[in-house]
């Protein structure tokens, strides 16, 4: 489904993504686990085509080299991204936001809201603006990804800052994506979120260090990554 080969990105003379390779299978939830500043979000952006183009390496999606494709083209192929801090839209209702470009019926949109624990009667007509809390906005973002039924959903720390009551709704939304046939690249620094993954890759200093089963990788992460003078620590 997704093959990243020897990806490299240098920003201001600093190596941010360092010869990174990663393979995501069809229908799997693949978590990328790493502490802050390891380049996880940059990796998500490179896959989606946001902000940067790699200096070297390839991003292959369903056999097609998409490394230099614009965002819209990747989205039309079935890749999408849920931002860690999603944008706010003044004057755009959740109903409209979730209906963008997918032609879904209202019942289907409502189902996507239910899947992330947001009752449609309370949320459909609210605006996707600053009136939503951070947690609500992230759940709306997740619902929006669900409406797309993507082939690959890149979820960038969608669990970040979510309270313990809401976290199961996020997990439920991710599970729903898998059940609909989507592959999920789950970017996180939380071991709790990783539990839902089929496979986990540990990332440090712009590189994938190890890939394996969630329990094994969490153990390795705890023992090796909590104290780490990796190269992305600010000067």
């Amino acid at each position, binding site marked *: 489904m997704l093959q990243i080969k020897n990806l490299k990105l240098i920003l201001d003379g600093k190596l941010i993504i360092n010869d990174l390779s990663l393979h995501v299978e069809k229908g799997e939830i693949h978590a990328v686990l790493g502490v802050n500043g390891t380049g996880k979000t940059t990796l998500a952006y490179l896959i*989606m085509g*946001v*902000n940067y183009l790699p200096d070297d390496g390839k991003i292959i999606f369903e056999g097609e080299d998409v490394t230099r494709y*614009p*965002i*819209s083209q*990747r*989205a*039309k192929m079935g890749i*999408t*991204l849920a*931002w860690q801090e*999603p*944008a706010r*839209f*003044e*004057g*755009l209702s959740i109903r409209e936001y979730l209906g*963008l*470009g*997918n032609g879904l019926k209202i019942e289907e949109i409502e189902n996507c809201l239910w899947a992330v624990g947001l009752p449609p009667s309370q949320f459909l007509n609210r605006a996707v603006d600053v009136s939503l809390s951070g947690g609500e906005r992230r759940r709306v973002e997740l619902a*929006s990804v669900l409406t*797309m039924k993507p082939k690959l959903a890149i979820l960038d720390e969608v669990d970040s800052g979510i309270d313990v009551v809401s976290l199961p709704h996020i997990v439920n939304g991710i599970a729903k994506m898998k059940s609909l046939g989507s592959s999920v690249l789950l970017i996180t620094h939380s071991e709790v979120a990783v539990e839902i993954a089929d496979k986990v890759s540990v990332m440090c200093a712009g590189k994938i260090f190890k890939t394996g089963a969630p329990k094994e990788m969490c153990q390795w992460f705890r023992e090796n990554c909590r104290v780490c003078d990796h190269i992305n620590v600010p000067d």
Partner: protein
Amino acid sequence: MITTKEEYEEIVEAYGKAGGNKEALKSREVASLVIHESRVLSANQAEGIRVKWEQKDKGVRVELTVEEGKKITYPVHLCFGVLPKEGLQEIILRVEAQADSEVNVIAHCIFPNAVNVIHKMDADIKIGNNAKFYYHETHYHGEFGGVKVIPKAKIRVGKKGVWESTFSLIDGCVGTLDYDFEIFGEEKSISELIVKVYGKKEDDIKITEKIHLDGKEARGLAKSRLVLNDNAKAIVRGETYGNAPLARGHVDCVEIVNGEGVIARAIPVVYVNDKQAKVTHEAAIGSIDKKQMQTLMARGLDEEEAVKIIVKGILR
């Protein structure tokens, strides 16, 4: 009263095309006023609302009174327009919402064929104690940009009174706009001015929103949203004066610049002369937010579609 039936039918038709409710203009239960150029074509009073007019040398003088304690069930509909390519409309508007009254006024101003049209409104509005007045004005201009719109209003809001207005000029070319609304709010009053304008081509836009919070605990918001394309120019002055204890005011201006020749300026003025008053402001001028664009494009929209969605939301 209808003076010229054909003229009336024409303007009502244009009113419908501009999004107005034609049936409301014809209903006996709904207060309404139709003015073409500087002539009143029809006026309907309803329970609790009195409408008087007088033809003056310079335009038409209209008096609208909402009687004390009356809560008007149906919105009042106003239709102001000039249908020919050239023309002048001058309206002297005197409004009094008496104490404890409540009314919602919907105005449509239509200039679909304008090449050289001037629309002037000079309004003096008194909102009584505990009265609530909601005023929504929507403009429909043609594509020629030949309209000069000059709405001026002075509004006095009594104790615990509410004034909320929206001025929206999104359809067609603006032409020249010189909007100037000034409010004086007494104790515990609420004053809100919202302006939404979509500037294109060579449009020249000047917006002045002033709120004087003169009474204790008076509140005010001066909000503007502009999107500017092509060579449009805009200057927005949002002024709020906190002159009384616990007065709270906010100036909020966003101008989206989306054209090579656009010039956008914002001048917020926040003034406080009471140690317990507080006035804040935020102003943002710039291109369409990159992250918003990327978010919509990651949902499969192309760049043009994404811009449309964002602009539509801002101006809604």
